[in-house]
């Protein structure tokens, strides 16, 4: 019966690795993707709420936290993208210090980036680090 015990002992490992892989592929696919937001959780976000002025055409609101490796790269990318656009602003918010806002906007993980239109209404959201081309095409859709 040696064979049976070997199978028994390897079953938990196999289950864990299969489930983790399924989650992992979903994680890789979904992180960074910019989703359109049809019905924003909040009304317009204002400079008062965010602590910094909005961009005339669009605003990127990034939520970051201390235990987040891709937050740094995302911040550098978004700052770099908006550097060439004077009508788009990037605001980096420490999620931990603004839990009320985090709850209201239902931010679940970092980095999460909200794409606001000229009125401050959320029209898109990226969970995880987005790619440069995704950001620029989302911004070019905002007039």
């Amino acid at each position, binding site marked *: 019966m040696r064979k049976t015990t070997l199978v028994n002992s390897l079953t938990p*490992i196999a289950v864990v690795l299969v489930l*983790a892989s399924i989650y992992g592929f979903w994680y890789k696919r979904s992180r960074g993707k910019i989703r359109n937001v049809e019905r924003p959780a909040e009304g317009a976000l204002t400079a008062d709420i965010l602590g910094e002025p909005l961009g005339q055409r669009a605003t990127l609101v990034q939520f970051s936290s201390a*235990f987040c490796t891709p937050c740094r790269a995302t911040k550098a990318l978004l700052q770099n993208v908006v550097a060439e656009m004077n009508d788009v602003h990037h*605001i980096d*918010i*420490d999620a931990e210090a603004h839990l009320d806002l985090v709850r209201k906007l239902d931010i679940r993980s*970092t*980095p999460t980036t909200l794409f606001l239109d000229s009125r401050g209404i959320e029209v898109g959201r990226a969970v995880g680090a987005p790619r440069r081309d995704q950001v620029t095409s989302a911004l070019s859709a905002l007039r």
Partner: protein
Amino acid sequence: MTQVTSQPTKSITIDARGPRFSAGITVVVLATALATQSAWVLALQGVVFAIGAFRGPQFTPYAAIFRKVVRPRLKGEVPTEDVRPPQFAQSVGLLFVLVALVGSLTGIGAIFVIATGAALAAAFLNVAFDFCLGCEIYLLLLRLR
């Protein structure tokens, strides 16, 4: 005056490949513990997690192997990362190991298997998918408060 934007606090950066390599060894050790149902193997991993959680992931025996054996053989630009995200992950790993050991001591095998399995899943996701545990769970934990 409240600070809305996050300030860059003084932080240590380390070679980002180190924690991922360490997670690879962790996967092997946790899988061994799970297959053999060995609390001793798990306790050893618990000691490594404790060093990583309290002193930092760059001070674990696995990190020493990375520095002495693996790193000299790697070429190219060194990717760096803040030490805090992997340190957070080590703390979560330690928590899972402690729960599993409680399961083992109290004779509840299901607790041992589930907690060890959870730690294995997180370490495997880190190696295979560059999974960032702190990104996914830290904010959820804060929101529970």
